[in-house]
């Protein structure tokens, strides 16, 4: 591998690059999909290639190829330099990078049970047993159960002498029961919509107890069909961790991406209301709001040894006691606010450039009450569980979420079920209204394996640790 990376870097620098890096990536994937006890799709994929990123005249160029030969490395390096020269024809602000030390070493996701070492028929059997359990419930129209795993071998080398090797494994699984009556369609999933994902081995799937939770999930899907719609109003809401992590993702994770704040994602996903002049001076949330980007936390989808610029995994405070204090950043963007990169540059494979992505953006737990204690402490509220729909504006201010489950809480007891529950608001108004956060006993990692960003499009795997929280005076029950 060093032959190819050295050749790519030598060619790029010989042609005029002042900085170059190269990533060689091999990725394997396996997926199982079962619908209504029928094994509908099983697939295995492999892709490999390399991408070269260069700085020439203060501007970026990138080229990539599936063909892992030194001759192709020469061609691709030359193409990257040519592209960078074309970029430089519009330069207004020359790119400068921070001075991180060269990176060296090896990182591997800890896996107790290698998911790719377990026989396929056993994995199918585990999932099929859970899907059959869903179908034991009367009134279910159809079910879907999924399993997927991905492993990536990634070599990174840069013209400053950096050389790292990483093996990252991600795995996810989940169940979904669908109940339908006329034009009313209700879905209930377990443990999460689209599966619960982690960086881990097959032990992650075993710990879910899919079979043991299937019947409850399916029964709730049927119950939802006859539940009344959630009335509109302004209420106290309790966000279960299975919804709270999406609230963190959309309304804190994305707006604290420094590239968005600088406008470089404006043409696709938008910008951010959190502009650099607000650093350390803007109240984002209540005093209970501590949010950290942490690439070191075990099992997170954003856990690694180094990011795709060779910056070591680290913890970066984003919100501290409610104040906005930090960004997810890169070697290019961090110096513009007088800081070092926080190590958040991640690429979706060999053929994409690294972008600022979430690592694991976590709302820290607060001692005092578990999430169940917070529910018991609530006189009159609504409990929202498991994300079903999400939308937020291009500056990450106005959001609307829908959940699979919405239950009334009266006198600390969970009661009546509503269907099609939604809540909406403005990001900082919601976080400022947070008056309780669950303790460490309710805290766990959740994963988003489908975070879209960039042009050409990239799908990111990012993590979120949350414990559940309570918010006051939130508008609920928006419907057409």
């Amino acid at each position, binding site marked *: 591998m060093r032959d190819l990376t050295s050749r790519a870097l030598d060619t790029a620098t010989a042609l005029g690059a002042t900085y170059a890096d190269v990533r060689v990536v091999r990725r394997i994937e396996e997926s199982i*999909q079962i619908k209504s006890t029928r094994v509908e799709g099983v*697939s*295995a994929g492999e892709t490999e290639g390399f991408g070269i990123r260069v700085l020439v005249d203060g501007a970026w160029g990138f080229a990539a190829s599936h063909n892992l030969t030194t001759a192709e490395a020469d061609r691709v390096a030359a193409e990257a330099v040519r592209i960078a020269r074309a970029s430089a024809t519009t330069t207004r602000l020359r790119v400068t990078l921070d001075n991180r030390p060269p990176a060296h070493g090896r990182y591997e996701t800890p896996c107790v049970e290698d998911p790719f070492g377990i026989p396929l028929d056993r994995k199918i059997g585990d999932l099929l047993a859970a899907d059959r359990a869903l179908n034991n419930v009367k009134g279910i129209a159809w079910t879907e159960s999924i399993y997927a795993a991905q492993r990536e071998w990634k070599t990174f080398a840069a013209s400053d002498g950096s050389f790292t090797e990483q093996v990252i494994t991600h795995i996810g699984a989940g169940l979904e029961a669908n109940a339908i009556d006329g034009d009313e369609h209700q879905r209930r999933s377990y443990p999460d919509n689209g599966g619960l994902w982690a960086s881990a081995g097959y032990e992650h799937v075993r710990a879910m107890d899919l079979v043991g939770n299937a019947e409850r999930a399916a029964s709730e899907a049927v119950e939802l069909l006859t539940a009344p719609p959630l009335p509109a109003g302004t209420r106290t809401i309790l966000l279960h961790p299975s919804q709270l992590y999406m609230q963190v993702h959309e309304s804190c994770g994305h707006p604290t991406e420094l590239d968005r704040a600088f406008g470089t994602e404006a043409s696709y996903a938008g910008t951010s209301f959190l502009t650099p002049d607000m650093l350390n001076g803007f109240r984002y949330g209540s005093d209970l709001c501590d949010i950290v980007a942490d690439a070191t936390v075990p099992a997170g989808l954003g856990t690694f040894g180094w990011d795709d610029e060779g910056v070591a995994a680290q913890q970066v405070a984003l919100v501290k006691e409610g104040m906005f204090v930090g960004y997810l950043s890169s070697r290019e963007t961090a110096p513009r606010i007088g800081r070092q990169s926080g190590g958040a540059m991640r690429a979706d494979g060999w053929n994409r450039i690294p972008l600022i992505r979430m690592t694991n953006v976590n709302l820290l737990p607060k001692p005092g009450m578990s999430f169940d204690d917070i529910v018991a402490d609530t006189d009159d509220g609504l409990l929202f569980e498991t994300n079903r729909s999400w939308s937020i504006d291009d500056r990450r201010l106005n959001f609307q979420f829908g959940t699979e489950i919405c239950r009334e809480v009266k006198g600390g007891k969970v009661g009546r079920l509503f269907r099609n529950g939604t809540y909406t608001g403005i990001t900082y108004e919601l976080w400022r209204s947070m008056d309780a956060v669950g303790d460490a006993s309710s805290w766990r990692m959740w994963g988003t394996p489908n975070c879209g960003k960039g042009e050409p499009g990239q799908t990111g795997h990012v993590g979120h640790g949350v414990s559940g929280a309570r918010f006051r005076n939130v508008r609920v029950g928006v419907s*057409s």
Partner: protein
Amino acid sequence: MSSVGGGLDLRGANPEGALRLAEEVVRLASAAGAGEAEALVIAGDSALTRFANSEIHQNVASSEVYINLRVAQGRRVGVASTGRIDAEGLRAVVERAVAIAGAVEELDDWAGLPPAGAGPRTPLASAWADGTATFTPEQRAAGARAVIAAADAAGVTAFGSFSMDAEAVAVASSTGIRAAERRTSSQLLTVTMGPDGGSGYAEQCSVDATRIDAAAIGREAAERARVTANPVDLAPGDYQVVLNPYAVSDITDMLGYLGFSALAVAEDRSFFEAGRRVGSDLVTITDDGTDPDGFPAGFDAEGVAKQRLVLLDRGVCRDLAYDQQTAARAHRASTGHGLPAPNPYGPFPTNMAMAPGDASLDELIGGMERGLLVTRFHYTNPVHGKRVVITGMTRDGTFLVEGGRIVGPVRNLRFTMSYLDALAGVEAVSRERRCIKGMMGGAVVPALRIGAFTFTGATAAG
């Protein structure tokens, strides 16, 4: 690394090379004992120049190959894919697919692979333009500079991307399918933003990148950003609207995603019932792989020739998109709308078009007593899939119209609205249509005037 067959040249979107590679993979799978085998090969080059703050900040190119192999042993089906074309890579992908087929349970209603006669007769020449395949980084940079110059002239800042793809697509199967074609596409889009909160958008798509008028796109977006400065708050509620084609393309996208698939209908998660009226008489939506105004494609991922569908005929549900498996379950033939296997989403109409009307955009606006002109939607998502209730935001130009005249810009609004109700309320359709790149493929759509559209919230100024 050695390439199969003594060195296939897959660079330059070579459909003959892609087809030979697909045939070789099918031969290897058959030799490994596969009862049926089908290989999809997509090989080509793509590039994208991205600009922000009126300078190019990301600029990329890649050469990629994708092989998707589906094998069947009786009713047991396995799928494997690879990006490797060396002998070891091909051997490995065949081994994985055959191993999966040996491990899975039988699909009791496995349809088998499409028959040879379902393939296309001739490649679709209109899917390709040399001008895109040879488009250089310098040409993309020139396009970006033209947009930036228009933004500079209007005192606003430009953000956007200029992209191109040139690929060879081939399908070969043990049942005799032989399909090969080369396809190009290109897109220039820009968001422009002014110092006083104004923002604009414009986009042009084409098979031929040399037909894209970057300066005109820049001027359109820049003018919109200029006139949307200092937007004011407007109370949410029901408003008559005119939706620009950029917004209308979200409606066709969502209908394709949620409703026009035979699998969605089979699973009872679609609104679609043949003969059901869901739109006004003015709404006809087709899917036509040969439409030169979109991104033509002669066949699907199963190698089946694409048929023209009339999905909504003057507001009434008529045709559905089928792939081989959903067609067999319905005892009919595939319409050529299959995606690469395994495909949990079902078939998808990738070449939708909405029929034009007879009004100009000015006439659409002139017909509103009090309403909103919406440039486009942002971050839309289904709230209720079967009723096609969607929530999302307006973006890059939302204007209050009174007495048929634009009064001024308003701050972005959130809507929560059934797109079926929106189609039922269509009052007028524009003559002019645009090709807009969508979720999958592109859609050729007009502007629409709709009687009532439900806005449920507004963004904040901060």
